[in-house]
């Protein structure tokens, strides 16, 4: 799962890494689905169990190594085949691999990533406006709680202003 997440959303390993595998695992532990399911996919937990096992199975068949141990280019090539729905072995138990990729892997991993404040900071989103609301809704204005953008050459000014952003 960790290796798969690192393929979908590459991050520099370390303390700043959003713990994607743990977040998806928490969702699976709680079995908290989306409230709807494509009938061609099994329930949340079964889809992940089957999909991860099939992925590992394919990797072992080709490289005699589990998915997490093969080289990154080989991992990506394998995932590209899954994305195109080209893998159909018995390990998939009839689950279309392209649907597993788009509706489980992408959906769950990307949702986990973009629910994390670190991902918001990366793209300059200060988090939901609730309960303060947006007041200064004009072009190039921001509310007092929003961080100023550190445009090239303006980094120090932005840093100074952002000490006041609450």
């Amino acid at each position, binding site marked *: 799962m960790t290796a798969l997440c690192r393929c979908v959303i590459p991050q520099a390993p370390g303390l700043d890494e959003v713990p994607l595998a743990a977040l998806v695992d928490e969702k699976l532990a709680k079995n908290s689905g*989306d*409230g*709807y*399911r494509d*009938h061609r996919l099994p329930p949340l937990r079964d889809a992940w169990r089957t999909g991860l096992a099939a992925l590992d199975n394919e990797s072992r068949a080709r490289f005699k190594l589990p998915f997490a141990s093969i080289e990154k280019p080989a991992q990506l090539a394998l995932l590209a085949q899954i994305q195109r729905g080209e893998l159909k072995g018995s390990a998939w138990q009839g689950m279309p691999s392209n649907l597993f990729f788009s509706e489980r892997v992408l959906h769950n991993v990307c949702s986990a990533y973009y629910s994390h404040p670190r991902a918001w900071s990366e793209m300059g989103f200060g988090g*939901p*406006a609730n309960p303060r609301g947006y007041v200064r809704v004009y072009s190039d204005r921001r509310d007092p709680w929003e961080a100023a953008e550190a445009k090239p050459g303006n980094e120090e000014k932005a840093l100074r202003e952002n000490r006041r952003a609450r």
Partner: protein
Amino acid sequence: MLDDAQHHPRGKNDRAPNVFRVGGWMPMREYPQNEAVDFAMVGTGAGGGTLGCRLAEKGFKVVAFDAGAWWRPLEEFASDETHQAKLFWTDERICDGENPIKLGNNDSGKAVGGSTVHFAMVSLRFRPEWFKARSLLGYGADWPLDWREMWDYYAQVEQALAISGPVNYPWGRSARRSIAGASARCACDAGQSRTAERLRNR
């Protein structure tokens, strides 16, 4: 995560949480198990909650059921998506067919208040011509009632649900909502839109 409300029912002992006050309560009628009541509402969303309220105001004995929690919005939510997920009704629905539709996990609410706990106070009115979709637009079905009849009900429901939006609607007839009660009716003949004219001439 703050989820006490999901484990301990709060609307009991003749009181209910006051969602506008931190830690506040407000009185609520409670009926013993063996007492007959006039109405039992199943679900307290935009339909059941609104109707139950109106019936109770008219003096009927009303009991309302809801599967979800009675949240205190000022205290129990961090302002992020993970906390908001506590409001969603995510019991599994299967999307069938050759081209299964993708729903959202926030399409339905599971809380006292139903989807009105997270509907962003948006509830759009039908356009007049959609009430005669079959005969005017060639698809769907004609509704068995006139759009002008609905316009007064829209005004009432929008008041009851405290929806946000324009004072004057961009379609249909204009109405001065600030004048309580008489509003929709008096504006009726004054400001007929072109669409209304067209509908009336048919």
